[in-house]
């Protein structure tokens, strides 16, 4: 793989971090360990019993087993992870994404025990994790939010929906990442969905409060990567993640194609205003819904962690985002000014999942019997699979990210298409073939489509298959 490298590297002598406990698994654990090695920092992987023999375990300087395979008994145990960090003498914990990465209790438990949490402060995680609070912060920072607001009961919901217009989305205050969303096209649907949404929110997030937002029909998902040190905030450009299935991202690219330059600048400025308003310290992403029809954008949410799609930003910026994240976590000021951030070219990432695309994308765990990823210039593969690797039903089905870059979007797209034609993964079903089909569509080639694109594509594909 072509490794993104920071121009200004952090040496271990620059700060207090000499050893990091990696509290995650899969490709992101591999990714983090790779940077730790480059920086001369010891890596200790906290692995469940199912991941003892994983690629990350082999790469880490040491692996400690934190519990059985079930995430609730291992990767989600705050006390165990803090104890592990203390026991192995780590000064810091990297939470990766998912699991405990956005749990303020974890960040707080780390700092209470004198361990650096490589991420924002517990208070910042709390503020952006509460979707209503995040909306309020956005409004205070003069960042446009989607029309809507909190509703305590059905009659309040009906009144508000009448004001903002149907269709509306019912969202969980404690939700995020597309989970806990329901769409209501009519007052009758709102009536039938409201109580259900609230009950689901309570069981899934422990918080039954919901809010409603205007559903933007033709929206693009555009996000801005930011980096803050608690004092200053810079942006590292934008990404488009509009290829989504049921709010789960499948293909991401940087920069977002075809945005009017004025709007792009406004998006960057809005993301910085939001992050500055909360004195954000760490790497983060501010997500926006770009209303294509009306040529305006709205704040969606902020992700207070490293994201799955961060490699596309690394590929066009030449930065190692994990290294920057570690630098600010140990109290350093930003090592880059906005002018130092030079974005060049285009990068596209496909998320390869072990799933059965023919049967409603259900996860397809199994044992990988063979793997081949091509190694070409302009191609990067972030993965943890190798022959013999078990794709466990306990965890996420994502097994690799294939990232192609080029001087132009079309060059990156062609490289990715060609690379995927050479990818070979045996033993488990994957969505590689679907990615190739999507990349070849006229809509994808043109770029700038809304989040409904993949749904329409799959519906047409399904209809065509049924007709044959």
């Amino acid at each position: 793989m072509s490794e993104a490298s920071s121009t200004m590297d952090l040496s271990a002598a620059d700060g207090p971090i000499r050893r990091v406990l990696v509290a995650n698994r899969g490709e992101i654990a591999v990714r983090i360990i790779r940077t730790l090695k480059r920086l001369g920092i010891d890596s200790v992987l906290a692995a469940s019993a199912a991941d003892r023999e994983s690629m990350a375990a082999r790469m880490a300087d040491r692996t400690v087993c934190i519990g059985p395979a079930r995430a609730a008994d291992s990767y989600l145990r705050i006390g165990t992870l803090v104890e592990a960090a203390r026991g192995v003498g780590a000064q810091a914990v990297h939470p990766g994404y998912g699991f405990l990465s956005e749990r303020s209790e974890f960040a707080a438990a780390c700092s209470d025990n004198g361990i650096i949490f490589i991420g924002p402060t517990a208070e910042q995680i709390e503020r952006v994790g509460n979707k209503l609070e995040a909306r309020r912060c956005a409004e205070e920072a003069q960042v446009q939010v989607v029309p809507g607001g909190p509703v305590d009961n059905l009659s309040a919901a009906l009144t508000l929906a009448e004001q903002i217009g149907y269709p509306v989305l019912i969202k969980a205050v404690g939700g995020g990442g597309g989970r806990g969303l329901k769409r209501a096209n009519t007052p009758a649907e709102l009536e039938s969905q409201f109580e259900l949404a609230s009950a689901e929110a309570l069981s899934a997030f422990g918080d039954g409060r919901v809010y409603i937002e205007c559903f933007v029909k033709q929206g693009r998902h555009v996000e801005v990567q930011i980096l803050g040190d608690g004092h200053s905030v810079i942006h590292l450009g934008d990404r488009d993640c509009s290829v989504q299935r049921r709010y789960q991202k499948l293909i991401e690219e940087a920069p977002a194609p075809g945005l009017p330059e004025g709007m792009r600048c406004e998006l960057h400025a809005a993301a910085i205003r939001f992050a500055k308003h909360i004195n954000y310290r760490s790497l983060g992403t501010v997500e926006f819904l770009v209303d294509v029809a009306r040529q305006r954008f709205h704040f969606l949410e902020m992700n207070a962690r490293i994201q799955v799609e961060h490699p596309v930003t690394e590929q066009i910026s030449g930065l190692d985002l994990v290294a920057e994240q570690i630098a600010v976590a140990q109290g350093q000021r930003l090592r880059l000014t906005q002018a130092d951030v030079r974005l060049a070219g285009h990068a596209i990432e496909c998320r390869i999942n072990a799933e059965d695309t023919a049967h409603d994308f259900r996860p397809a765990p199994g044992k990988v019997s063979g793997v081949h990823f091509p190694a070409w210039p302009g191609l990067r593969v972030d993965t943890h699979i190798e022959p013999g690797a078990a794709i466990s039903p306990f965890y996420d089905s994502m097994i690799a990210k294939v990232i192609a870059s080029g001087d132009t979007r079309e060059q990156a797209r062609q490289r990715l298409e060609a690379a995927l034609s050479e990818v070979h993964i045996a033993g488990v079903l994957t969505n590689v073939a679907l990615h190739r089909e999507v990349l070849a569509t006229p809509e994808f080639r043109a770029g700038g489509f809304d989040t409904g694109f993949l749904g329409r594509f799959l519906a047409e594909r399904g209809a065509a298959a049924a007709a044959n």
Partner: protein
Amino acid sequence: MSFSHEDVQRLLQLLDASHFDELDLEAEGIKLSLRRRGASLVAGLVATPAPVPEGPRSTPVVPAPAASADSAGALLEIRAPMLGTFYGAPKPGAAPFVSVGARVGRDSAVGIIEVMKLMNSIAAGVDGEVVEIVASDGELVEFDQVLMRVRPA
């Protein structure tokens, strides 16, 4: 006279191969009583032939594999149910919960694993005699790590 682990193993084999159900031995500083499970207690130092039991043969003192040359295979392991800091005694300076040679039952406390200042009592989970303590006091133990080895009762 010193009596080694191997000597006991050899005696077990002898008893197992014999038609006797009990063996009592007294030597300088040592008293050993071996008895097949299910055999009736017979007083006296000298082994006496017990009535041959009806039905299936009674089980030996230790499970069959222990009678083989590979005695280590017969030992049971007490494993850590969680990651944390292991302590072999209830508090610093206090006598340990168990030492090598101690008899433990399923519910016997054999140690403590501390996770974030929370002390979790670790039960043996097996019946037998502690023959080895693997975990060191005050050290990080991983989930499923072997803490002690026990010869089954």
